[in-house]
């Protein structure tokens, strides 16, 4: 790799960087219209008023617990989305190409899970299954029992099932939407069915599903506070605890809303970055 080529590449990069800077400047001046400055001032005044006239003295006491709660919320979100997506791929795929005895259960799985409230599913698993397990001695003796006595496995299970069902429906559409010619071309190149799936079908379907995936992930984040109803201490549960022990109502809830806004913002930003990396002009 020659030094000259390197230098040329560097110059190109700095050109790009400069034009990007100009773009950003132009966008900022478009965005920052006079009325927006007024709105921002109003917003800052509101925030300052909230900081000065509302009660925040509870914050130092619950600081550690709140961070732990945020961590647990994020952890549940990431684990359930990852597991849910892994389940959603086969659920979507069998509905497009699978035999009837696979596609039919997958279809009804999606319909039933999407047709009932998540809160009900969560309580069904936690109270229903949870009350059934202790009746079987072999469950109590198994290595899983220490986990089955806790709440979080039920939370993870029900959120995973819910994400898998909603995302399975999305993946079904995405798999069906990949142009047939692409798959036929891949087959004509002598790729095995598995290779076609791995190299062509799955990537293109995922690209198609990505915008919806972002929305579903935000919805999943918004579903996480439900786990507080089965005694998992996420950030929402921390806020409720503050409310119950200090009788301060608005401040913890407002802070909670801000925390969720921030997490949503980060999620949306991350997915937008991911989407920007997708090669365009598909199919």
């Amino acid at each position, binding site marked *: 790799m020659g030094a000259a080529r390197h230098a040329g590449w560097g110059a190109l990069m700095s050109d790009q960087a400069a034009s990007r800077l100009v773009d950003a400047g132009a966008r900022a001046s478009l965005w920052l219209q006079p009325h927006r400055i007024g709105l921002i001032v109003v917003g800052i005044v509101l925030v300052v008023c909230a900081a000065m006239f509302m009660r925040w003295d509870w914050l130092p006491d619950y600081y550690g617990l709140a961070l732990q709660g945020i961590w647990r919320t994020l952890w549940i979100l990431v684990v359930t989305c990852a597991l849910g997506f892994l389940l959603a791929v086969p659920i979507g795929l069998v509905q497009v190409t699978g035999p009837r005895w696979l596609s039919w259960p997958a279809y009804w799985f999606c*319909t039933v899970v*999407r047709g009932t409230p998540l809160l*009900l599913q969560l309580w*069904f698993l936690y109270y*229903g299954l949870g*009350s059934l397990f202790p009746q079987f001695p072999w469950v109590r003796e198994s290595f899983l029992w220490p986990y089955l006595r806790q709440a979080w496995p039920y939370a993870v299970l029900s959120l995973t099932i819910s994400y898998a069902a909603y995302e399975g429906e999305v993946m079904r559409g995405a798999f069906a939407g990949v142009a047939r010619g692409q798959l036929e071309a891949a087959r004509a190149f002598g790729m095995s069915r598995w290779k076609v799936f791995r190299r062509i079908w799955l990537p293109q379907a995922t690209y198609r599903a990505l915008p919806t995936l972002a929305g579903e992930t935000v919805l999943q984040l918004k579903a996480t506070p439900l786990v507080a109803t089965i005694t998992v201490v996420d950030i929402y549960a921390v806020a409720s605890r503050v409310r119950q022990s200090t009788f301060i109502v608005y401040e913890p809830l407002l802070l909670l809303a801000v925390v969720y806004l921030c997490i949503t913002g980060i999620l949306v930003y991350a997915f937008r970055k991911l989407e920007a990396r997708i090669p365009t002009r598909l199919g």
Partner: protein
Amino acid sequence: MGNGLIEALIHLAQASVFDLLALSPPGWGGNLLRGLTNSVLIAVGAYGIGIAIGIGGAFGKLYGGPVLRDLLELYTTIVRAVPELVLILLLYFAGTDLINRLLEALGYQRIDINGLVAGICVLGIVQGAYSTEVIRGAILSIPQGQIEAARAFGMSPALMLRRITLPAMLPFAIPGMANLWLIATKDTALLAIVGFNELTQETRTAASTTKAYFTFFLAAGALYLLITLFSNVIIARIEKWARRGMPAGAH
């Protein structure tokens, strides 16, 4: 292993499912159906308020002044980013508190806000944010010529809204609005957490009293599923009706 299973089955059989779900008082079926009625009422009310806010919000976003537009953007962004549960608590506490303070300032007695009304309003505000986006998108999908033609005929904005914009956006809005209806029916379950007696809360009460968790949660799940499946049938008909006169396959 076998013993436990048989014991559990006997346990289930003893408290016979049909006794538990009987409609008259020793059974809990009546309570479940009352909860179902409440859930449907809340869903219908919240959906109605949501549509009203949605139409207003969409027009504000499309044709309003810059400040109104930004405020609406703020509203839809915040409501769609913060969990419904948090919004319900915030609006429920803040709403009842504000109304009571207002009443006291005006020299009236404090009142207890009816849970049904509070639930409907709170879910309505949440629904409004989503339907604003759906209706805005639908209005944008109307072929521009139709609106220009209406203007050229000298229609006033109100007449244009009634005769052209609303009917023409309907086929574009219906998939999204149908989805919102299904979300509304399921979001009513969240009011169980504020202690309102809708289907999920009634189910939990029944289940924890009789210890027949499985039976009751399955029954409630079946009821919710019935609402969804029934809605799907109706939605399919409405969609067919709204698409009349559109070329087949056009979206």
